[in-house]
């Protein structure tokens, strides 16, 4: 027969066991954290800059969000009086060269290899939509701003881009190719996504992307590319300026 432990022995025994497990768990946690911080960097592609497992979680979040969330939610809109007069300017990548106003064309690359070259006059002929919403920057600030332009979905149907729109992603690139974004098609065709040429009822200023920019309220501002040069469509994720710098590709709100 085993002799029963005294209280003192029981205390020592249980304390030892519990603290061993505790210290072991703490060590495992620290090792896990170190591993995560030293895990191989992701293969640079449409996204870059993060540790591979971390990027996998962000991409997993996107998959989950896109599955459970609706693309039909409308962004809250405001009366004109709520719109800011001094609109914040953040970033000028892709805007450094002068704009050739006379020869300016929006290039749209079609699936069959054709390229549409569309003038601003043609774009202005399409039905205009105005949008006053709380523009949200990934930095954490937001501002109610007033924009005008053509809904991307209207543009797509006017130029018969249905086949292209059946693909997964849309890509926008500035004329100098310095700034570029990729957007999932559902968000691009959201009824509040605009090819925008007006701000506060006036032509877009140069620093806001004159003559044509994107306004996509279901994404952080990083996706609202200023000064669109080329619009194209793809099955795979197009390259994306900020996703290459460690940000979430989806960046959906």
């Amino acid at each position, binding site marked *: 027969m085993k002799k029963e432990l005294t209280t003192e022995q029981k205390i020592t025994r249980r304390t030892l066991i519990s603290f061993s497990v505790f210290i072991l768990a703490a060590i495992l946690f620290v090792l896990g954290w170190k591993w995560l911080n030293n895990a191989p960097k992701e293969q640079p592609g449409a996204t870059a800059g993060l540790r591979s497992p971390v990027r996998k979680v*962000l991409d997993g979040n996107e998959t989950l969000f896109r599955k459970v969330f609706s693309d039909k939610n409308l962004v809250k809109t405001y009366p004109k009086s709520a719109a800011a007069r001094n609109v914040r300017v953040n970033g000028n990548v892709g805007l450094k060269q002068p704009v050739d106003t006379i020869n300016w064309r929006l290039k749209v690359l079609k699936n069959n290899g054709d390229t549409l070259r569309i003038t601003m006059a043609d774009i202005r002929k399409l039905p205009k939509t105005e949008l006053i919403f709380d523009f949200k920057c990934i930095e954490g600030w937001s501002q109610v701003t007033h924009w005008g332009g053509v809904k991307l979905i209207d543009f797509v149907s006017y130029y018969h881009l249905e086949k292209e729109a059946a693909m997964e992603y849309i890509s926008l690139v500035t004329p100098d190719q310095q700034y570029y974004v990729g957007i999932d098609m559902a968000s691009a065709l959201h009824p509040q996504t605009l090819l925008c040429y007006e701000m506060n009822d006036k032509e877009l200023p140069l620093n806001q992307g004159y003559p044509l920019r994107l306004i996509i309220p279901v994404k952080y501002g990083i996706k609202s590319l200023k000064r669109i040069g080329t619009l194209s469509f793809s099955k795979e994720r197009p390259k994306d300026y900020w996703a290459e710098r460690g940000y*979430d590709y989806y960046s959906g709100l």
Partner: protein
Amino acid sequence: MKHIREKHSLAIRWFHWINFPVLAIMIWSGILIYWANDEYHITIAGNRFLVFFPEWFYKTFKISFRLAEGMSWHFMFMWLFAINGFLYVLYTIISGEWRLLVPGRRSFKEAWQVLLHDLHIRKTVPPQKKYNAAQRIAYTAIIVMGLGSLITGLAIHKPVQFNWLVYLCGGYSLARLEHFALTIGYVLFFLVHIIQVILAGWNNFRSVITGFEVVDSPGSSTGNPLTKIQTQKPSNEEGTNN
């Protein structure tokens, strides 16, 4: 005579110790995010006496220009924070332990007595079961705060999908401020918690790792035999602090 008295169940101990590093990572990555738009400060009558955060703080902890990194950690560990918190609440409900945690009608009055006692102003020990009134309030408040962090966090992370949450929080920028204020709340809680744990001593600290406390009972002739036998139900006993 010394004997062992069970205090914290294994589940509670795991929830507690998982939450600690996860919350630490959430706070740290949250600061990396906050840096990109560090607009909060406390100003009274024109005097700015607290700035979140001063330049030396960012420098010391190497906070600057790490927004993307901060976001990636934040949106990775948010799952652990939420799941661990959810399981903890579920556990306290199923086990019935919530009864020892949720403040009762008298708790707010008693909490005052606890405070006076802790500050050595009042001699008599206020009544308590596993937790005293102040602890009940604190440990319940921290869970409500956790829920608040999830709600305000969701509101600023997905404001289009959860526009009703944004509304509930009083708007997008207010939701961000609330999310930040709650974090400051955790830090304050942590400071008080650490001080209390240090003051309560080794026996108390050990119990959150081992699960038991060692109590001294008077000799068998005068002691209540019940307190010796009861090793499973801490709820029926007079507990020590923390």
